[in-house]
């Protein structure tokens, strides 16, 4: 039978060591194993043979992280909700890694300049030659600005996210970084591109109409 604990009691037991800590860890593990089937339900059924090893591993990793980061819990939520956020991230990180492990990025990241996707002209069913030229010129400018502003790492990450729909977590792993660092790197890239497009007088809405 699980003890009912408030936040203070969880922290006290987990910091106590000995039997109190062992009992609290056991109860947390039970809660994690109850919660994860709901969390993972869109992607993996609990009858899937891969399910038990996945959630057992995620639970174990979560308990270690909780113990390592106990002093980071700020008391702004239920302690158990905080633990569930850590468990969810651990489980989804592993699930994403498994799902994407056989997908290669090679080829995807090299660009064939002779084979660029067509420009979108559907909004303008019978464009004049001048309009076509304007659109082509705008697309070329945007491509040039993007090429000039993005580092190779940023370009690779953006293509993986945009073309293949790869999760940030997995793209970061492939690029030898972590998700948080990649998010910051791409935020910097987005800001730089935004400033450059504004400085060159390029309307993003108009540019969006040009790309199919």
């Amino acid at each position, binding site marked *: 039978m699980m003890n009912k604990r408030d936040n203070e009691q969880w922290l006290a037991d987990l910091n106590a060591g000995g039997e109190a800590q062992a009992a609290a860890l056991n109860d947390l593990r039970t809660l994690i194993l109850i919660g994860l089937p709901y969390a993972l339900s869109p992607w993996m059924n609990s009858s899937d043979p891969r399910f038990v090893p996945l959630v057992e591993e995620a639970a174990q990793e979560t308990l270690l992280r909780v113990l390592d980061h106990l002093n980071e819990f700020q008391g702004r939520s239920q302690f158990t909700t905080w633990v569930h956020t850590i468990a969810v991230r651990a489980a989804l990180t592993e699930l994403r890694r498994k799902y994407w492990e056989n997908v290669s990025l090679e080829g995807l990241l090299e660009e064939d300049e002779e084979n660029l996707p067509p420009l979108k002209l559907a909004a303008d069913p019978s464009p004049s030659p001048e309009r076509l030229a304007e659109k082509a010129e705008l697309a070329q400018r945007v491509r040039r600005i993007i090429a000039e502003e993005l580092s190779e790492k940023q370009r690779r990450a953006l293509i993986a996210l945009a073309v293949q729909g790869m999760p940030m977590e997995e793209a970061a792993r492939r690029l030898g970084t972590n998700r948080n660092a990649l998010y910051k790197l791409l935020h910097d890239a987005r800001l730089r591109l935004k400033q450059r497009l504004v400085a060159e007088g390029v309307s993003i809405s108009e540019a969006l109409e040009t*790309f199919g």
Partner: protein
Amino acid sequence: MNWIKKFFRHIFSRHHQSTQDWRRSVLEMVQSTDDVELSCDEVLVLLAEYTEREQRGEDVRQLMPLVAAHLERCRDCLEEYQALHRILDAPLGA
């Protein structure tokens, strides 16, 4: 690159199955970029509170707008928020 390699890459690469230029997605991301954004780890710290308050019916988009904006931009964090929501909504009160 020789033409044989180019040909097979053309046939098998997922990239060439896509008719949409990846730069369109980049432009969409740029369009919704704010000067100040929370990173994934900063959102993780706030996610439990955000989800509990949302579940209590509070207007979290108003109260915690930077978290809400991040969830619109970052699919990984959105999936984790939705997964956490499912746990909190579970009948067993996990």
